[in-house]
């Protein structure tokens, strides 16, 4: 065996080659066949999207000067060490996405009017990417959150929101704890039984579909497609269950029990994501950085916080409350800095993990105090882009953030013409 890289990939799983141009319109069936062929790249492309639920005081985030020589702002100082590894955007938002907090659902899908009573969501960026690269890893993608059990913005093609994992220990167990032989055998039995059940109900659906009208058949077809898809996922799980999980030095994390310790929870998740990337357990992650309910406090190590995080954002213009909210904001940027540091410290084949990992760090809200959905606090770090600049767009007439998603899609090797409401890739953001 060749020198073992730190990518522990005991099994090469490849995908049918029919994958030409992936685009929004192209619905790629998951895992057609997994005939082993080709070798996965040593340091593959990855993407993580982090959405803070509450917005930021963007006055401390956006630099005044545009271009490469922009001045550091209070928030950007927290990640100053990586100045050349990120781009800060101002004057950008998702066209047609409004509704205050409701906009969270459209954060990565760009689906318009999320607060409408007949809102229909569409596929999110991470899920579109998962259609291309999801089958290459044990977990096609990992939707994470801090307390909720919804990923909020990780959306399947059908419009269904993915549930999320909110405990670091659970994530660790899924990725690294290898059960005993009999546990694995039981797990395999259950998976196989699951498959037989699905096989049977699919047969029942076929019979059902014969006796319904044309319009109803569409729904039953959706059911059958979902069942087949679920069967494929079970096959995938069966294959992976037979493959030993990678071992890591990192110990199992202890879950944070203090509901207010949002900062530590976020940092724990970042640590787990680093491990996930390092072991190539997944290449796609979303983190819903939420505060566990609208009244909950975001506590800080060095200051006493008495107001809930959400109420604080509404008081962003208050002289007495603004400093504490600023500290909370800064804490998240510090955590991001820590994450970037970890990714940058791991190298393989001359490139760091950060070089191959796009980090989208933003929010569904623009300015925290106004709760609007304009001028989103967006940072893109890592990946193949030429960073180190402030791309300043019109703060009054915003540039479409969906264009950034299209750029990210291209960077993943998916050359679609369009993503959601995009009109092209971001001008001024070039590949390095």
């Amino acid at each position: 065996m060749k020198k073992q890289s730190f990518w522990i990939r005991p099994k090469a799983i490849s995908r049918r080659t029919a994958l030409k141009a992936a685009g929004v319109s192209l619905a790629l069936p998951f895992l057609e066949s997994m005939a082993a062929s080709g070798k996965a790249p040593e340091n593959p492309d990855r993407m993580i999207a982090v959405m803070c639920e509450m917005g930021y005081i963007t006055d401390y985030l956006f630099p005044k000067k545009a271009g490469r020589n922009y001045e550091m702002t209070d928030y950007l100082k927290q990640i100053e060490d990586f100045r050349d590894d990120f781009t800060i955007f101002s004057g950008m938002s998702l066209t047609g996405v409004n509704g205050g907090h409701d906009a969270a659902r459209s954060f990565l899908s760009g689906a318009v009017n999320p607060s409408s009573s007949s809102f229909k969501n569409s596929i999110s960026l991470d899920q579109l990417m998962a259609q291309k690269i999801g089958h290459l890893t044990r977990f096609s993608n990992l939707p994470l959150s801090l307390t909720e059990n919804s990923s909020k913005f990780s959306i399947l093609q059908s419009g269904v929101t993915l549930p999320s994992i909110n405990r670091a220990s659970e994530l660790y167990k899924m990725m690294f704890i290898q059960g005993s032989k009999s546990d694995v055998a039981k797990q395999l039995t259950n998976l196989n039984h699951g498959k037989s059940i699905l096989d049977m109900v699919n047969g029942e659906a076929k019979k059902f579909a014969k006796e319904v009208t044309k319009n109803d058949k569409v729904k039953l077809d959706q059911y059958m497609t979902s069942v087949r898809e679920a069967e494929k996922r079970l096959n995938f799980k069966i294959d992976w269950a037979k493959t030993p999980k990678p071992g890591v030095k990192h110990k199992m994390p202890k879950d944070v029990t203090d509901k207010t310790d949002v900062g530590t929870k976020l940092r724990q998740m970042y640590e787990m994501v680093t491990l996930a990337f390092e072991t190539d357990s997944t290449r796609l992650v979303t983190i819903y950085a939420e505060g566990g309910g609208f009244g909950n406090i975001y506590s800080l190590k060095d200051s006493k916080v008495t107001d809930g995080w959400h109420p604080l954002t509404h008081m962003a213009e208050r002289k007495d409350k603004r400093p504490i909210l600023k500290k909370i904001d800064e804490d998240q940027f510090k955590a991001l800095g820590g994450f970037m540091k970890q990714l940058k410290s791991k190298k393989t084949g001359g490139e760091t993990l950060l070089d191959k990992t796009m980090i989208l760090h933003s929010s569904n809200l623009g300015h925290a105090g106004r709760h609007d959905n304009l001028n989103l606090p967006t940072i893109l770090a890592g990946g193949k882009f030429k960073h180190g600049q402030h791309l300043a767009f019109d703060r009054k007439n915003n540039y479409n953030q969906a264009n950034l998603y299209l750029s990210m899609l291209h960077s993943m090797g998916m050359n679609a013409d369009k993503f959601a409401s995009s009109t092209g890739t971001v001008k001024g953001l070039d590949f390095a």
Partner: protein
Amino acid sequence: MKLVTFLLILFLSMNSWADPRIDYIKKFSNKYCSDCHDDDLTKGGLDLAKYSLNLNTLDEEKMWSLIYDRVSHSEMPPPQKKKQPTKAEKEEFKTSLSSLLNESVLKTQESSGRTIVRRITREEYENTLRDLLHLPDLEIKSLLPEDSITNGFDNVASGQDLSHVNIESYLKAAEYALDMATALGPKPRPFKYEKDIVTFRKYTKKHRHKRPKENGIFYFTAKKRPAVPPFMIEGFRIPYSGTYRISFKAFGSKFSYKELKSYPADKGTAQVATTFSGPKGAFRKHQSFTLPNDKCDDYITYLGHVNIGDHFAFNSSSLPTAANKPPTYMPQTREAIGVKGFKIEGPIFAEWPPKSHKVLYGNLRQVQWSSKVSKFPPNNKLLRHRFAKPNKSLENTVIVSSNPTQDAQRLLARFMTKAFRRPVSTEKLNTYMSFFKSLSQQGYSFQESLKKTYMGILCDPHFLYFREKPGKLDDYALASRLSYFIWKSLPDKELLELANQGKLNQSSTIKSQVERMLQDPRSERFVQSFINQWLELRKFQSSTPDITLYPEYKSDTWLESSLQRETYSFFKKLINENLSAKNIIDSDFIMINGRLAKLYGIEGIYGDEIRPVKVPRNLPRGGFMTQGAILKVTANGTTTSPITRGTWLAEKILGVHIPPPPAGVPAAEANLASPKTLKEQLAQHRNNSSCASCHVKIDPAGFALEKFDVMGATRENYRVLEGGKPVKKIVNLVNTEYQLGMDIDSSGTVVGGEKFSNVEQFKKIVMKDHKHITKHFLKNLITFATGSSIQFADRHELNKIVDQSKDKDGVRTLIHQVTQSKLFRNK
């Protein structure tokens, strides 16, 4: 073949060109509409060229219905435009369009029905499994992905999504529920814990200050220290999940910290306590109690579900909570709740094995597994769920049958009939029987094989979807439609029996069944689910009042639960007493308890029980729109916005269509730092004609509600953070400060020019068109009951119901009218 298709399309399109109605509509819209609504200038986002009159899609039908409405209400073309259609032109346009729409919709309804095949929602899935498995406390909703919402409701078939995630979740949820239902081993030994003097942990070790005790009675008073209730009662551990009898002795009193002595409670007051159980940090509310004053000789007893390892807690709901800030004002003697005894016994099983188990496995024998029983050992994951310490013997227990084929067939047939809500064909039963047999033959135990078969049933499309055929519903489909409307769950034995006899589909039977179903406690699910969706009460918890501006609402869980109960109880009273739908707008009674009386400023009402109270003169209450829960849902905890509230009123109550806001326009928000009213800001965009077209409909309704704060209390001034008049007062025993901003003006002018100066006058104006509001309520009710939004051709049937109801517009009568209507009785 291709040529034929081509010719067919050609023929069809020629045919539609030849339709004089289409010609006329095109002529009309070219003349009056396309100046603004073409691909060049798509005002209001409408490009008429995009919507053909073939009406092949739901979108097309919806858009043309909307165009019909806007033209008939003379909103379009805009009145200020010079070019206006003549009366005759407008009439012909309306007739042509409505006949075209009716024709097209009816054609689809005839061939496929109004409703597309509907999937049970996750709420319905949970209820269904609770009823099917006799597990009233089963919590399973969180295992399934959220349902998407269409026209306000989660059961509208056309908008229901499905993906592999749902399917995987159904498997998981089914397995979990089946595990929870299974009871292995001998009947658990009853557990009992009893204590005379209750020691509350919070006051035992950690806190050094004096314990508020006297004569073996523990006194809760306003919290001296910041502490978040509830208080845990410790000293025992719940060994098994199940129903427990919980008893305590508690009473309202007064207590002096200094003397450690109690005093009689103030006359006319009544304290309220709430009990909880659950894991620490995730307590579930059990029940609230109004306590007697000064003494309590008898136990207050109730039955509650407690899970293994749960803690039990007690919250002195009606006492002020001084969270986060220590009290700055502490009267020596203050309101208190005395607690003197606590008892918990259970679990209570009416039978063993419990019903949930018998549904699945009857009374079949349980033995210790050995390789003689089956090749594979049991996989008793459920032990973790139900029993404290899974022991080897329990883990090794397995259900067996000496007549596996016969037993499985008997049990499966019974279960499938219930789950599929209709008789099961032999073919279908055979499919499941062969599945069961194949697992048995592979060497899995009887129990394991049967369980996996049940899992299949619970993922089967006949379980997950409603089986309805175009035209009149058959008796079984009708039974399900009734039960999922009023119970949000399966039809019961009686409904299925009537369906079996072919008697259900008679008007008189439907009537008596609806009566019976409304009297059943399960109808509470209809009340809550309908209100949660129609009036958006599901969003109740999504904002928290700002404690700086509104210190009086801090951590007031009693207030929060009372507000929700008010709205549910109000609707329930309309149903139970068949009160007029006019009450939706305004009523001469309100449903309140002690806490709400305090919020609304009514004296002499104490305790927890929600009861009808006559609205005192000059109190601006009555109807839904002035209920606290509604006012909270339409606020964000810090400020209120007339736009949000106006839009809510228009869409939910008044039945006015409001299109989504244009892209790129920032939301107008009240600025807490400067007390300039939002009203002035809004005046600006009502002067801009493109904003005005919607805002003349939105803003006035919002203004009418301006004098209500974020929790529904009345106010004369906005509360602000700067630039107002400082207010200092003691709230919940804490010195608080906020500022009073500008006076509030709640006057406005409705479309049509009528003016109002307050919410009472606004309600009077709205009341003039109460028929329209009744109709809008019915639209929502029918959507909820049938899983399909109101289509153009349904308007006729809808109007019939409204006309029939003339003076008999009692809400119960309306529910009957709906269930008797064609819309309900046909697919």
